[in-house]
C-alpha cells in the first residue's frame, strides 16, 4: 500500500515537473459570488504588489460559480483561485494538483473561524420533532457541511432527515431564525455573534477551520513560481496590510494542508434545499 502511495506521489511530482513551465501571465479566478468591480477593488493592491515584485502579469478569469472554477483548474485555465475551505476540499477531491499557499485573516486577526448552529432564545428546540434549518449556500463551509456535522455530533440529528433551505447568506440564515421562519440556522460564528443583540443564541460550534485561501494550480505553475508567490505575499509588512486594504487588510498567514483535515471526509452536499 505504502509503495503504491509513494508511486502515486512520485508520478504526480514527475508530471508536475514535466507539465509545469514558467509563466509570466497568471490567470487568477476571484470569488464568483462578487461583482467584477468589487473583486478588482479587493485584489488589485495584491496583484499590483505581485506584479512589481515578481514581474508577473495578472489576468482576471471570472467564473460564474465554483463548479466553473473547478473545471478551470482541471483544464489549466486557472493558475490561482481565491477559495473558501469547502470549495477547496471539493476541488482537491477531484483535482489533486490544487494546493493552498496563504490563508487570509479575518477582522478578529485570526485566519481561522468556526461554524455554529444558532437559534432564537425563546424558541423551544424539541429534537423529537422535525425541525426547519436555514443554511447559507451549498458550497459554503458553514452551510450544509458543517451544520450537518454539528447537528450530528451535538444533537445526533441527521440534516437530511430535517427540513432545510439555502437562504444564500449567513445573515439571511440568521435573520430567518429571528423572524421565526426557521428554528435553527447554520452560519459563521463571527456573524452569528452580531445577531446575539437580536436574541440569537449559539447552541453548537465547530473546531477552528481555515479561512479563505489562495489556491495554486501546481500543474500550471512551477514550484519556484509558487514558492516565489508565497514568499512574496508572506513578506508583506503589517503596515502594508491596511494600506493595501481589500482581502489583505487583516493580514495573512501560511496555509497548511493539515488545517483542512477535519473537513477531509466523505460528504455529499445537496445543491438544493428540501423545503
Amino acid at each position, binding site marked *: 500500500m505504502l509503495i503504491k502511495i509513494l508511486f502515486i506521489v512520485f508520478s504526480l511530482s514527475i508530471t508536475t515537473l514535466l507539465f509545469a513551465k514558467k509563466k509570466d501571465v497568471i490567470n487568477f479566478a476571484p470569488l464568483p459570488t462578487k461583482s467584477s468591480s468589487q473583486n478588482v477593488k479587493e485584489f488589485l493592491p495584491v496583484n499590483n504588489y505581485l506584479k512589481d515584485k515578481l514581474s508577473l502579469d495578472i489576468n482576471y478569469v471570472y467564473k460564474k460559480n465554483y463548479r466553473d472554477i473547478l473545471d478551470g483548474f482541471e483544464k489549466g485555465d486557472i493558475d490561482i483561485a481565491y477559495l473558501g475551505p469547502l470549495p477547496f476540499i471539493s476541488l482537491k477531491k477531484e483535482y489533486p494538483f490544487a494546493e493552498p499557499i496563504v490563508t487570509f485573516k479575518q477582522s478578529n486577526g485570526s485566519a481561522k473561524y468556526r461554524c455554529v448552529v444558532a437559534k432564537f432564545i*425563546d424558541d423551544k428546540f424539541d429534537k423529537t420533532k422535525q425541525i426547519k434549518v436555514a443554511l447559507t449556500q451549498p458550497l459554503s463551509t458553514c452551510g450544509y457541511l458543517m451544520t450537518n456535522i454539528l447537528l450530528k455530533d451535538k444533537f445526533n440529528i441527521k440534516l437530511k432527515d430535517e427540513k432545510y433551505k439555502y437562504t444564500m447568506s449567513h445573515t439571511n440564515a440568521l435573520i430567518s431564525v*429571528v423572524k421565526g421562519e426557521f428554528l435553527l440556522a447554520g452560519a459563521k460564528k463571527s456573524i452569528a455573534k452580531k445577531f446575539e*443583540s437580536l*436574541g440569537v443564541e449559539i447552541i453548537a460550534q465547530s473546531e477552528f477551520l481555515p479561512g479563505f485561501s489562495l489556491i495554486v494550480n501546481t500543474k500550471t505553475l512551477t514550484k519556484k513560481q509558487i514558492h516565489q508567490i508565497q514568499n512574496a505575499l508572506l513578506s508583506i509588512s503589517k503596515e502594508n496590510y491596511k494600506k493595501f486594504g481589500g482581502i489583505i487588510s487583516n493580514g495573512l498567514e501560511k496555509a497548511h494542508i493539515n488545517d483542512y483535515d477535519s473537513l477531509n471526509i466523505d460528504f455529499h452536499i445537496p445543491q438544493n434545499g428540501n423545503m
Partner: protein
Amino acid sequence: MNKKLSIIIFIVILITISLYKYIKISEEVATQNLADKTLESVKVANNAILDTYMVVAQKDFFDILKNGEVPKLLKKFKYATNEEQNLLRGKLYRILYKEYDLLKTLNIRGLHFHTHDGKSLLRFHAPSKNGDSLINSRTSVRIANTEFRVVVGFEGGRTYPGNRYVFPIIYKNDHLGSVEFSVSFEGIEKKFKNILPFYAHMIIYEKDIIYKKVFKKNREFFIDSDLDKNYCTENYSISRITKNIQNDTFVNKLISSIKETPDFIKKLNKKESFAIPIIENDNGYIITFLAIKNIDKQNAGYIISFGKFQDIVELRNEYNHFIFIGFIVALFIYLLIAVVLIQIQNIKKESSKLHKFIDIQDSIVILTDGHEFKFANKKFFDFFGYEDLDDFLLEHHCICEHFIKIDDFFSLDDVQDKEDNWVESLLNLSGRKRIVSMQNKDLINSAFSITINKYDEENYIINFSDISDTMHEKLHLQKQLVKDQLTKAYNRNYFDNNIDKLIKLHNNKNEKTGIIFLDIDHFKDVNDTYGHQVGDEVLKTIVNIVKSNIRDEDKLIRWGGEEFIIILSASKIDNVYKNAEHLRLLIEAYNFEKVGKLTCSFGIVLHQNDSDINESIKKADEKLYESKNSGRNKVSL
C-alpha cells in the same frame, strides 16, 4: 458726407446688433422661464410625494401603537437588562418584520426604533447594527426624544440619507423612545416617474453633510458625483438608480453638457434650486436641480431631473423667426438708406455742379421765393463783402434791403400793397424797368438789370447783371445828386443817406468816426470885397486843398455856405485833431488868388457809437464857434 454716412451706417449697425442682442436675451429669458416653470412642477411633485409618504408613515405609526404588543414590549425594553433587551429586540423584529416588508413595497426603506435616550434600538434595514447613540448625530432623533414632537425632513443617517418621519412614542404617559420611517430617493424617484414627464431622476448629496453621519464603513456606499467633487451619490451596490444612470448614455451625455454650461458650478454652489435648459442638435432638454434642505436647514444636495422638452426648441425657432424677420427688415432699411444716400449724393453732385456753374457767372445770382433767401453765388458775397449766406443772414434777410432808392431804379418802396413780395413786384414790371442800384462793400454804387426765372414751384433764380457801365451816364447824374455842384464835395443829401454806413464801415475796422467841422473865416468879406465869383473860387480851392490832404475814404461834405464837414475814421480824438490842425496850417499858408491869405476855424469831435450822429455834429459846430469866438484860425476840441 462720408462722415455722416459712416455715422448713419454705424447707428444702423448698432441698432441691428442691439435688436439681435435683445431678441437673443429675450429668448434666453423665455427659455429660462420655461425651465423654471418645469422646476416648479418638480418642486410641487416632490412636496406632494413627501406629503403622501407622511400619510403612510402616520398611518403605520398609529397601526404600530394600536398593536398593544409593541408598546408593551417597548416599555419592558426601557427597563430591561442588556440580555433581556436582546431578546426583546428580536421579538420586536419578529412582530414587525412583515410590516416592514409591506413598507418596503411602498418604498419606505427604513424602519428604525430609537430608545428613550436616543440610541438605536432596532434598524429593520440593518437589524444587527444597534445600540449606537444618535442623540448628537441625528437632530430628528434628538427633537423627537427631548421635545416629544414629530420631526419631518431630509436627514443624513448612519446607513444612508433619506426623508425622515420621526414620531415620539409615548405610552401611558411614559416616553418609550421614537420610531422613524425613512423614504429612500428610489421611492420618490418611482413616483416622480409616474407623475412627471422626465426621462430620469437622480440625487446627489453634499459630501460634508453625508460623511459626518454615516458609519465609516458605509462611506464605501457613496461615490463621487460626476458633476462636482463636493457631491456624492449612492453607489450601484445600494442604488438601482445609480446603476441605471451609470450605463445610461442619454443621462451621461446630458451630465457632460451640464458641466459645460456657463456658471454651472456657481449655481450649484449657491445651494438653491435652479434649472438648466440645453439645446443640442435640435433637441431640447431641461435639467432641474431641486435643492434639498435637511432638518438642520443646511443644504444637503440636489434632486436632479433630466427631461427632453421640445418646447424650448420650438421657442428658439420662434425667436429665430423674429431674428430672420428683423434681419430682412434691417436689410430693407439698409437698402433704403443706401438708395436715399445715393440719391442725396447725386443731388449734391448736381447741386455742386450747378453751384460751380453759378459761381463762375459774372453776375450776381440768387435763389429765393421772394421771402426766404436760399442761395447766392460767389459774386454776391464778393460784392457785399460777406463770407457766406449765414454771415449775410446775420444782418439781413433779403438782398432787396440793398436796393437804393433812386429815381428810375427799383426799390422796396415800389412794391405795391397788392403784391406779395419784391420778386412779384419786379415780375409785374417790364424787363426794361427791372433795374436796381446797390452799393458794394466799398460803398460804390452799381447798377444791375434783373432777370427772373422760375426754378421750381416756389423758387426763382434771379440774375443781377452789372450794367454800371451802360448806366454810367445815369450814375453820373446820380453822383450829381449827392455832390455839391460848385465844389464837387458831397452834399447833405449824401450825408443823410450814407452816414450810418460810414459809421458802420469804421466800426468794422475797429475805428471810430471823427468829425471835423470847418468854416472859412471872414468869407462874407471876400464876397463883399471881391465878388461872388472870387468867393466861389475860394470855396473850390479850399475843397481842393482839403481833398488833396485827406484819405480817399474820408468824406468831405459841404454843409452849407462856407461850412464843411469831414467824416473820417480815427481811433482817438488826437488823430482827428492832427488832421484838422494840418489842414488849418495848409490853408493858412496857402496864397489865394486875388484874395491872398485866408484862414479857417475848426471844431472837432470823436463820435461815440452809442450816441446820435446829429448830436455829434452839433457838438462839432459848437466847438467851431468856440474857435471863432476865441480869435479864429484855431482848432477847438
